[in-house]
């Protein structure tokens, strides 16, 4: 009931409701896009875009899904759009002679919450996640890094649980393949 009233206030364009929405979802939205974009400044810019989209399209929200699911959907879509743009840009830049890309993989440990003793491993893992196919990257990020359940992830990604399980299994295989280069002794175990 409270949620319905809150959504109604948002639809009416009430300033205090929008402020409350930002306060409630700023951190989860920021962390989701940060994990996907792996860059603090880009993630902040993307988080702002998410809330602007929500403000403009809240009248389309029909309450068939949870507000949080809808927020995650918009966050994920915005981050993926940004990520695709980045990939297109870096692909073009690769063909320009003498051009050096601004971001390098050396600064891959983008998350301030990683503890010092874990930095090396976390950096390797983040790099490997960034190289996963888009859908695997998304499923892994939402479940392992963002802490969403399989059900919630399925709702955000508009897939069934089986598909999410399959994506997670393939993500694990791909990550293991990528990470094994740091452990030559482990290679025989496959």
């Amino acid at each position, binding site marked *: 009931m409270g949620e319905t009233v809150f959504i109604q206030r948002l639809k009416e364009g009430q300033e205090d409701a929008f*402020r409350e929405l*930002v*306060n409630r979802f*700023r*951190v*989860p939205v*920021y*962390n989701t896009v*940060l994990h996907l974009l792996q860059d*603090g400044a880009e993630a*902040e810019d993307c*988080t*702002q875009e998410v*809330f*602007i989209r929500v*403000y403009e399209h809240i009248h389309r929200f029909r309450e068939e899904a949870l507000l949080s699911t809808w927020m995650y959907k918009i966050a994920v879509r915005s981050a993926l759009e940004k990520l695709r743009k980045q990939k297109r840009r870096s692909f073009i830049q690769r063909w320009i002679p003498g051009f050096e890309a601004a971001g390098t993989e050396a600064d891959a440990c983008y*998350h*301030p*919450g*990683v503890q010092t003793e*874990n930095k090396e*491993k*976390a950096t*390797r*893992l*983040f790099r490997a996640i960034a190289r996963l196919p888009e859908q695997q990257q998304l499923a892994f990020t939402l479940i*392992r*890094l963002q802490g969403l359940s399989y059900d919630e992830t399925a709702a955000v990604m508009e897939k069934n649980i089986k598909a999410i399980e399959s994506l997670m299994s393939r993500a*694990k295989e791909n*990550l*293991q*393949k990528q*990470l*094994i280069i740091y*452990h030559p002794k*482990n*290679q025989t*175990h*496959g």
Partner: protein
Amino acid sequence: MDEHTYNEYLQSVSNLEPADTAPFFYTRLRARMEKQYERNWILPVKPVWLVGVLAALLLFNGWILQQNNGQAQTPAGNSLQEFAQSYDQLNVPSY
């Protein structure tokens, strides 16, 4: 790679303290929105829509011109004969 090593990697990012945006996020967000809506007041639709409408108008214009050309391509002799006939009708003897 064995499960133990893989789990060590997962462990390195588990229970991460959530990151937060820079301070005054809401103030910056509202400022961006206001700036964006000011711009939108000048240009209420996206440029892509404007270009689309312009292209549609040009096509419509071209179609109208083509239609008019088709109608205008009647034999020139006919209109001359019509003119001569009407002249004859006006040329009534005055006696």
